């Protein structure tokens, strides 16, 4: 995972898979990288092939943390498989999905 924090946006590259075995550590790592000035987290999902319900839970947890800062989580360039899961669970309503 590469962290490239900018002014108010924490940019994070999501792992190849975000599942029950790594969702918790990933959530904690991102949380610990947050600085007071961060209002948004941009999660680069371009290389993430698989997300399960635990991975979604980690994303929701991060989103809640950012909502308390009047911000949110943006899912950047999700793969087709990940986007299917987001839409299936209606998470595309919660997260902003960006394609650059």
């Amino acid at each position: 995972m590469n962290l490239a924090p900018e002014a108010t946006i924490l940019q994070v590259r999501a792992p190849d898979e975000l599942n029950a075995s790594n969702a918790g550590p990933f959530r904690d790592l991102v949380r610990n990288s947050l600085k007071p000035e961060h209002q948004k987290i941009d999660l680069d999902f371009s290389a993430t092939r698989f997300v399960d319900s635990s991975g979604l839970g980690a994303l929701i947890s991060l989103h809640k943390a950012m909502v308390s800062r009047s911000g949110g989580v943006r899912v950047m360039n999700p793969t087709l498989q990940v986007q299917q899961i987001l839409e299936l669970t209606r998470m595309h309503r919660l997260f902003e999905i960006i394609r650059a």
Partner: protein
Amino acid sequence: MSLVTISPGRILRLTCPCDLASVRDVAREIRSYLEREGLNAFEVNGWELICTEAGNNAVEYASGAAAAIPVEFTLETTSTTVELRVIDHTPGFELPDQSVLPDPFDEGGRGLYLMRTLSDSLKYLRGPDENCLVVRRQRSADGPGESTADITAEHAMLQATLHTMTEEIATSYEILSAIFRFTEELNQGVGDTGFIERWLCELAQITGADWHILRLVDATGRCLAVSHTSHPTANLDPIHLDTLSTSCSVEVKAVTGHQDVWFDAQEPPSARDPLRCLGPELAGFAHPLLVAGELVGILTVGRHSRTHSFNAGQVNIIHTLTDFLAIQIRNAQFQAEKLRAQLIERDYEVAARIQQQLLPKIHPCRGRWTTLGLCESAQRVGGDFYDIIEVGRSGLLLAVADVMGKGLPAALFATVFRTLLHAKPDLARVPSAFIEWLNQNLVAELAGLEMIITAQLAYVNFDTRELRVAGAGHPPLLIAAADGTFQEVLSSGPPLGIDDAQAFDEDRRFLPEGARILLYTDGITEATDEAGVPIGTDPVIEILKESARLNLNAQETVDRFAALPRGTTTTRAADDRTLLLLSEDTALMPEACAAPNSRTLCPAVS
């Protein structure tokens, strides 16, 4: 993980240790197997997720000795169906009849929902030592034959990717072309309601929305009023931002949370939600319009449908175009505010010029006596005021007033005070009577606005050297003489505007040789030095005494007062500050004064 059997009847059996990482190994193996079996990309993705969720449950709920027992997966494929059986050694659970999505902010509880949504049937068979989850789903009707399985699976994946890319390109094109069209129209101004109407119409066409409500924050900044809606006859009351409750309204939730709020048949607007008036079946979302975190408005869009809501691409279009509109609206508001500020600034400039015109242009002289004033406003216009009125051939009435507060209201009262001062010249020789009359004429207006005026009137008779002083809550009049003596004349009454029956006393003095008489407002003595401490009266008295001792002329003396600290800012005084000086030049012999009533033109310092 161990692969037990791949039978000719297409049965795959796998076991793995009871840990989450091993479950993923199994899921990937099953995915590869199903790809070889010729399932398309959507089916393969679904089974990988089902297998993972089922395995995760088997691991997460296993405890004690059960956690040491491997998890067993059996996958059976036929030409028409795929069935997965997962055997766990957990205490088991009661399978609900239905699975619903949890609240969007709940972090767990989606595994079962995903498995059910992705399958045709799901059963959970509980036993004394082990349980079995059985998931079944029909294969796609256009499933491939075994010999072309790999090619067709890849083809399906490519088709799906192509479909997504095409959709995204189309979405981007729609967004860009709409923004270009709107940008072209911006020359006509966002205030043109036709612009927003056309914008909403475009948005509806691109996204397939059936209805919309656009609310914008009004000029007060405290109310979200309906700007445009597809249902103009609907009863949609304004939303008052300063009395937002924990209302069950979708729009209020979106405004308070600064987040999209979705609704459909599964999570419908509450019975009291105003959206209900749009129809019985509603699916859509409310999106707050924010610019730099500041609320500009809220757009609620939807369809007359139970479940058919917007997909991710359509949500992106709505977000992008709405955010674009929000920026344009904010820009238009900034422009309007800038214009209003310019107009107000111009009004203040005119008011400041008028106020300067009201100060004496000519400062009268009488023989050895000279007058000079200083008036500085903390803002463009102020509530301080001084005036000099000639009374006969040998008298002057000196007046200084300070209206409580600063800015335009104070300036208006200062103007009223001046008008009254010039309206009753017959009272000029009796300052106490004059100040009583002023109080009686001002008290009603001042009390109505909870304002007061402090003032001091001093009548000087140069023939008799008599000084008569009356004050209303004003700083003391100061007298310094050439011989070093010094006097203070205190105000005899409270400020003007409190009691119309108030009587004011009058203090009578005789002017000493080489006298310096100073009337001033508290802005002079309450100005702070660099340390932020008010300078007080000491430096003022010192300057006045020195002026008398050294026989400084009026201009030199006023310059010294002007050089005193002005307050916390370098450009303007923290408070209005005003003074009026009467000084006697002892160097001039009385007979040298050819014109006893001559006048000198001494512009006020501002």
